């Protein structure tokens, strides 16, 4: 089959893949920060909740995260009177991945938070700053910097999981690939999947490059 045809039809799924990848990743980062915050509380209940959530997040295959999000979440929402039946599939994919990986993100941030030098807090308090300013101005920027390599690794996990959104019928690159293979009864499956793999790889490289740029700009050398 014409290589051009393969590339063209795979790339048609690129917007969905990238959209889901990027937004779920950002959302998951926010959830991760929240989990970090909860897991750093003094009371046992909060820490227990954080740990439970992290455990669920670690033990659930992404495939199941997506299925549960798409089919079971609307039922939950129905309970509280929200009709989610017609919401876009992308929304559920994003939600599934973001929540599914939120526990991991929380761990990444917590580890980074704990490795920020204690003296940074002390110095900030000592110049009379309030807790919220200390966090916003001094600590979180450093948390991000320390966490970045791990966040970058997480990004690869997201990429991996985003290739599974086909299970809820989203036309991402992977779905387009299987679809294209199916048009020809799978005769060109290998070629198509090699091209698919290479496109994924290029996406990885592209985002790794963005990370590098960001790190370069935000390293307090």
């Amino acid at each position, binding site marked *: 089959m014409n290589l051009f045809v393969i590339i063209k039809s795979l790339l048609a799924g690129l917007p969905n893949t990238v959209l889901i990848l990027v937004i779920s990743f950002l959302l998951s980062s926010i959830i991760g920060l929240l989990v970090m915050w909860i897991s750093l509380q003094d009371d046992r209940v909060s820490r227990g909740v954080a740990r439970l959530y992290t*455990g*669920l997040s*670690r*033990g*659930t*295959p*992404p*495939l*199941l995260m997506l*299925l*549960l999000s798409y*089919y079971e979440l609307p039922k939950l929402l129905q309970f509280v009177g929200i009709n989610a039946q017609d919401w876009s599939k992308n929304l559920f994919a994003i939600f599934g991945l973001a929540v599914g990986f939120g526990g*991991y993100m929380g761990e990444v941030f917590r580890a980074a938070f704990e490795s920020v030098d204690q003296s940074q807090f002390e110095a900030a308090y000592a110049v009379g700053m309030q807790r919220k300013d200390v966090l916003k101005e001094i600590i979180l920027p450093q948390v991000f910097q320390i966490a970045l390599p791990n966040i970058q690794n997480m990004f*690869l*996990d997201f*990429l*991996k*999981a*985003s*290739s*599974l959104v086909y299970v809820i019928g989203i036309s991402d690159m*992977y779905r387009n690939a299987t679809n294209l293979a199916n048009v020809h009864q799978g005769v060109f*499956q*290998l070629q198509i*999947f*090699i091209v*698919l*793999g*290479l496109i*994924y*790889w290029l*996406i*990885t*490289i592209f985002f790794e490059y963005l990370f590098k740029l960001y790190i370069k700009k935000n390293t307090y050398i």
Partner: protein
Amino acid sequence: MDFNFMINSFPKLLSVLPITLFISILGALLGLVLAVGVAIGREKRIPVLSPILSLLVSLFRGIPIIVQIYIVYYGLPRLLYYFVQHGKGSGLVLPSMLIGVVAFALNAAANLSESIRSAYHSVDRSQYDAAIAVGLTPYEAVKRIVFPQLVPNFIPNFSNIFLDLIKDTALVYNIGIIEVMGKANILASFGFNYLEAYLDALVIYLVVCFIFAKLLLILEAKIKQRVFA
């Protein structure tokens, strides 16, 4: 929801858990062996080999594992078939299991080699220097001083990668290996009880991951204690 089905299916799913564990454990172990080689090759900056390894690591990390599984599944036999095409005789049969394990091992090797490298770098350089300075050969220095210290650093990362591997085995039913997810699909397909079957599977994955996470945590503490008293 059909709770009867859930209860009846659960032991059937458990019966194939060994397959899930077999693939993930064997994949992890083979991957570990490969990863050590890759890490050494890259750290020693062996010309030609090192950049090739770096490219391979990047490829295996940057391509979703399900795509890798397919490529290995469809590509490997064809490659081998190509080589033996002229030699007649019985057909060349590669069991899916072998292919699954190979795909997982390669993927794990790429991720583990990065973890090994970072664990290696986390051991203070002066530890190696000191060992060299008392007259140990570089090999002995790494073996006796650096390696024991990098192991505890490595375990948390290993744990993450291993749990990912367990969960990713949920994808190999696509190439005909009947592990927990595959069995769930098959059991479900007779009566289309997919949701029930998947919830069963979820419980199994959660418990297995929980147990391994705990075991590795204990191992880490034990090793730390052994290494640093």
